[in-house]
């Protein structure tokens, strides 16, 4: 750490609350760490003695992995995603003529909240706010047209407070706005993802492990899969297939849905949302159709009822169009 002073550092002086922990806070953190450390056995074997069994375990794991990967050993669940992956591999990549745009529609229903003063009233309400966005992407530039729908409330009191205080105007309910963003960067889109499922699995796992969030690794992998398959990136069929193959190896619940679609889901404990089920749905060509997070218990603050899907995003398949504002012919 450097003692150099710089005017940029001085800007923040006295404005930011950078307090020290109290003794109680330090002790609490220490006890949490102690519990984790105590549950971790000490390893005092000489390195060589550790390496021999480790190598044996690695060989056994490799054999098991090879046997498990054999087609006749696939679980039915794994086969659902595998079938779509195989189908995706047979599809020709979409042609993107020079200067064309990727067009798709994204529908969102997202948990929204307000706990700030609106006029003279302090509000604390939560609601689901739907919107529909048409997107025209070209490289790092996007033109979008968003229409905001009617909110969905969890109580009549929240609904009354919402309209009485004019929050619908703030949310632009019933309105449509158009905006153009340039220089939109996305490291996922800039990464050279392998189309070999084994290599891709390694890449994805490394990226997921670099995320220090507390979600289980399978959830991080699902999140990453959704980002790789975001329509704006127009993942080629081979990459879509490889992502599906990787998802098929995770410990997920899978199901076949109507219309050849397949869902993959997992359940985990979230700090804010309680028990959460995350679900991705793919169509028969391997395109991401939807992504949904549902709290089965309700959130931990008790402000969202059990069974609420607090984030639902559905996508239309991406297609090429000639210019912003142009829609594909039906």
């Amino acid at each position, binding site marked *: 750490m*450097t003692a150099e002073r710089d005017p940029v550092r001085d800007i923040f002086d006295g404005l930011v609350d950078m307090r020290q922990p109290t003794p109680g806070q330090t002790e609490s953190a220490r006890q949490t760490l102690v519990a984790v450390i105590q549950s971790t056995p000490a390893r005092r074997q000489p390195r060589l003695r550790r390496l021999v069994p480790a190598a044996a375990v690695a060989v056994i794991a490799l054999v098991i992995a090879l046997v498990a990967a054999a087609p006749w050993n696939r679980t039915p669940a794994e086969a659902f995603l595998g079938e779509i992956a195989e189908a995706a591999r047979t599809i020709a990549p979409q042609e993107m003529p020079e200067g064309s745009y990727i067009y798709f529609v994204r529908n969102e229903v997202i948990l929204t909240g307000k706990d700030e003063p609106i006029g003279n009233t302090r509000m604390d309400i939560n609601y689901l706010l739907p919107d529909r966005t048409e997107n025209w992407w070209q490289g790092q530039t996007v033109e979008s047209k968003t229409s905001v729908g009617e909110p969905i409330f969890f109580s009549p009191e929240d609904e009354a407070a919402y309209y009485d205080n004019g929050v619908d105007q703030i949310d632009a309910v019933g309105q449509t706005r158009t905006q153009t963003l340039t220089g939109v960067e996305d490291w996922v889109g800039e990464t050279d993802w392998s189309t070999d499922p084994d290599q891709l699995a390694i890449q994805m796992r490394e990226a997921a492990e670099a995320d*220090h*969030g507390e979600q289980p690794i399978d959830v991080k992998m699902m999140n990453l899969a959704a980002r790789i398959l975001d329509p704006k990136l127009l993942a080629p069929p081979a990459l879509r297939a490889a992502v599906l193959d990787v998802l098929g190896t995770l410990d997920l619940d899978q199901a076949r849905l109507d219309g050849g679609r397949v869902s993959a889901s997992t359940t985990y404990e979230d700090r804010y949302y309680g028990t959460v089920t995350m679900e991705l749905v793919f169509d028969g060509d391997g395109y991401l159709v939807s992504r949904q997070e549902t709290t089965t218990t309700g959130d931990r603050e008790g402000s969202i009822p059990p069974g609420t899907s607090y984030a639902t995003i559905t996508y239309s398949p991406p297609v090429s169009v000639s210019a912003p504002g142009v829609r594909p012919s039906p």
Partner: protein
Amino acid sequence: MNDGEVMRSSVDDPAAFHMVFDRYHARIFSYLAGRVGPTDAEDLASEVFVAAFRQRAKFREDAVSAGPWLYGIAANLARRNYRSRARRRRAHGRAPADDGIWFDPDRDAQIDAARRIELLRSELNRLREKDREVLFLYALADLSYAEIAEALDIPVGTVRSRLSRTRERLRNLLPDEGKDKGEGTAEYGGGE
């Protein structure tokens, strides 16, 4: 024993990791308090050390200080915490300021400070997230360019160029001597 030696010994002797906690908890807490506020900082600071302990085997063989690594984890957790809160509080047209920092509410009540905070919020909102991360590690954690590069796993030149961009953005908020210094951006320039 330097941090690197402690980290490496904690792979075989987990209890050795307590030394890392003793050396850095207060600093990490303080940084997180500045990022997410004291309430969430308590949980996140604890998470930083649990995450670091679980990943201690991945600590770089040649690293001497654990500070940049811990700040890197803290920055990730702060960013995730902010996104999570922002998603919950998102509202079109009047979302809470997405500036990734926690201003002192007591100072916010004072008129002159409130004005400075308002200006700073406005500028921070215009910064790219990754530029802000560099700025916060520089200004709040007092890390050097090399330490920030290590914390965020980016080249030192990238740190320089991001801070240079940020310096330009914040020019109006700099004290006069800072503005003069800031004009020589070549000093902080670098290829990204």
